[in-house]
């Protein structure tokens, strides 16, 4: 199973995290899980890069963290999108779509 998973593309991890936590506040493991589920197991977040990315985004002020209680009543750190994070997400989405469209056009050429 793991072999068929694609590593998340460099640079897209931030976008994916922002998107994931924009749906609802969630803790680190849930972020990884959500990305894997939504992508139907196609995208595998390297967990070693997940937390550095979370902390980096928090440091930039795009997400904030607070301690809450997880689904099975455990203390967990939940991340949620801030206003600037939302703007950033919008910017990155636009950029990504332009990029993806470009790539698609090139690959579709006869």
């Amino acid at each position, binding site marked *: 199973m793991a072999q068929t998973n694609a590593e998340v593309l460099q640079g897209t991890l931030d976008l994916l995290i922002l998107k994931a936590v924009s749906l609802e506040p969630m803790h680190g*493991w849930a972020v990884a899980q959500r990305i894997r589920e939504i992508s139907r197991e196609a995208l595998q977040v390297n*967990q070693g*890069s997940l*937390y550095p990315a979370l*902390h980096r985004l928090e*440091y930039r002020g795009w997400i904030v963290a607070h301690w809450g209680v997880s689904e099975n009543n455990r203390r967990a*750190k939940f991340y949620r999108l801030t206003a600037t994070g939302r703007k950033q997400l919008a910017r990155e989405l636009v950029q990504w779509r332009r990029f993806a469209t470009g790539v698609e056009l090139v690959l579709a050429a006869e």
Partner: protein
Amino acid sequence: MDRWRGLLRRLRAVFARGSAARELDEELRLHVQLETEAGVRRGLSEGAARRAALVAFGGEDRFREEARDASGLTLLEQLGQDARVALRMLRRNPQFASAVVLTLALGIGANTAIFSVVDAVLLQPTPHAEPERLVMVWQTDRDSETRHEPASWPDLVDLRERSRTLAGLGAMSAGAVTLIGGSEPERVSALAVTPDLPGVLGVTPLLGRTFVTGEGAAGGPKAALLGESYWRRRFGADPAVLGRRVVLDGEPATIVGVLPDGADLGLAQVHARADYSAPMASSDVEVWLALEPSAEAFPRETHPFLVIGRLAPGATVASAQAELAEIMAELETAYPENQARGANVERYGDVTFGGVRPALRLLILAVALVLLVACVNVANLLLARGAVRAREVAVRRALGASTARITRQYLVESAVLTATGAAVGVALAWGGLRLLVALAPADIPRLTAAAIDLRVLGFTAAVAILVSFAFALLPVLHARRLDLQSVLKLQAGRRVSTGRGGRRVQRALVIAEVALAVPLVIGAGVLLRSFQALSAVDPGFRTEQVLKVQYQLPASRYPMDFSQWPNLSAINAFHADLLSRVRALPGVTAATLAARHPLDPGFTNSFQIAGREAESAHWPEIRCRFIAPGYLETMGVRLLAGRALAETDVAGTTPVAVVNRAAAERYLAGFEPVGQVIRFWGVPWQIVGVIGDEHFNGVDAATEPAVYTPLAQAPQRAAALLVRTATAPTQLTPAIRRVVRELDPEVALFGVEPLDRTLAASIARPRFTTTLLALFGALAIALALVGVYGVLSYGATQRTAEMGIRMALGASRADVVRLVAGEGARLAAAGAALGVLAALAGSRFLASLVFGVSARDATSFTLVTVAVLLMAAIASWLPARRAARADPALALRSD
């Protein structure tokens, strides 16, 4: 807004480092836990799921560091953390840490202390205005080949009138006066100066004014200036001292001003340099008097005045020399008294500092070498340690720590080391400076003003810190080149070698250390042998168990009535009474008097030998000394021919004299000295004996010809009582003070000390230089030997496996010892060879400081080289023996 929040979070992260780290740990733990549970849900066993979770997690170390880097646990926090790690590391390696700290501290401390002295003595501006324009104007005598004679009063007047190259020309004459201004009479050091001399020197009074013309003339109003220190000490820095009347040697005088300390800078050195001049009693002038002698009292043939000039604008020492030589030539043709006399112009600063410059230059060189050796040693220590840590670096890099991160940590570690070293160095410099000032001879100008020089401290600390930083970085740079895999494959505990390049650097450093230290030790050896030669000189008199007490009879009640001379009953009676009473004191085995104590050269006079007047006219002046009966016995001076001066040689009987061996050989060779007549002061003195040479002008100088006459036939108001005692000399001081007080309470005593202390003080400067150089030499060689030992024992440990293989293949333990120690011997020999060459090249720094040995003294060179090689052999043998003791089997397995 968000930026503020980010900053706040950052700050919180720094101050709440502990809680941030805990939160991160908790977050990560939860992740692994949830991942494990997910694995179990997928059907894995608990253990397998946990392992999979951990594997998926990746390098924990790298992960943590990245997460922390990202979360704003920034530079500041990491520096603090690095410092804590560094301290922990150093605590775990106390030997390494203390070696580095001590080495740095010694280098920094010694340099700062010596440079602070040099700064205070040589580099600080002098209190004189435009000091570079000040010159000494000496007289020369072609007949006696003297070049530093004082001048006559009429010569000074003529020079003043005719010279265009000198803007000012003043004169001075040192002495001591008894000052009565309060309860007790006090003997103070005094300097009589022409009223214009303060202006020529360019000193401004702290208080009041300097002299005006007329204040030094006979019968005029007498004025006096006080030296600042004396004013503070004696008058409590009271400004109301101006206008106060005091009695100086029986004459009333008014205090008109206070001159700042340092106004007398160089005057003691001028006196010491002069031929035929008594040295100043103290280098600090306590009272300044005005000097306006009459040509009648001081005719052209007497030369008592030291002349200081100030170059006119545009004039140079050379142009002044040329002009004054011309004027002196004119005076020579005009006056028969000036026959053979010329001028010698010398820069004043050269006279002031000429004596200490060579010694201080040598000491600067020495401490600079010590600093270099210290830096090399620190470099070596760090290098050896760096090799040990190469593996640590490789492992940390493999775990994901960035090079920048590791570099930073090593720099912090190095900073902690050097900061500690510098701090200890400051303490050493502070203590060392106190020690230097205490140890130093009294004749070094301005030494007491020495204070820790912050610029020098900063400079030396910066050098040391730069060196240690540079070498702290080596392991990191080195590790970048290392093949990570091969390093990591090594068993834990195995050291990684510094590599061929590193070893080469280490060997070069060891050679450099030895090469730097050897010249120092050789220099110290030469000075030690020189000092030994100096101490071995028989001064011609015996100083042990002798107490010296100097005194001065006040002029008021002990007049010098020249119409009655030499029958000056008051003076002669005091001397005789004092001597007989002191001789009667219990504990006194012998006692005598002399106008000057045996280490005070006193003054000189021109003289003639009866029947050889024409010849005598070209002779230099002769030292004139005045002694009481019993002098030879008390001082242990040998009688070589004829008889000694006796109790019966008093005023009224035939004037008699004895001459020393130098005088007999110089002026009476080929004659029978006893029976000759020597004439000075218009008195024909019949020579009754020849005595041994006393080194009254210092043990390092050849004894000058001298004539001794009875004190009773040439009365002096100043005298030194010399008492040979059965017990410790100072025990008699109270009894002698009592005797003097009973005879006359107004007589001031001074210079009360055991004579061997006076002798020791006379060679204080060479002792000072020798002691310091020996200290620095020992320091440098000790550091160098630590270097040899350190590098070899490190190398031996590294080659444990090689030694095992060698021994397994049949090498004996002796072979191994030879192998390891041989390397040390080769390094030390190479260093010593370079060091000897450097010492030969640097021997000129010693040339002016040695006595009785050559600056390239073969004995010192040989002994030191052999000793250094021997010590290096021991330093090499210890690690070699350890290498040879290793069990071959164990050695092989340990790899």
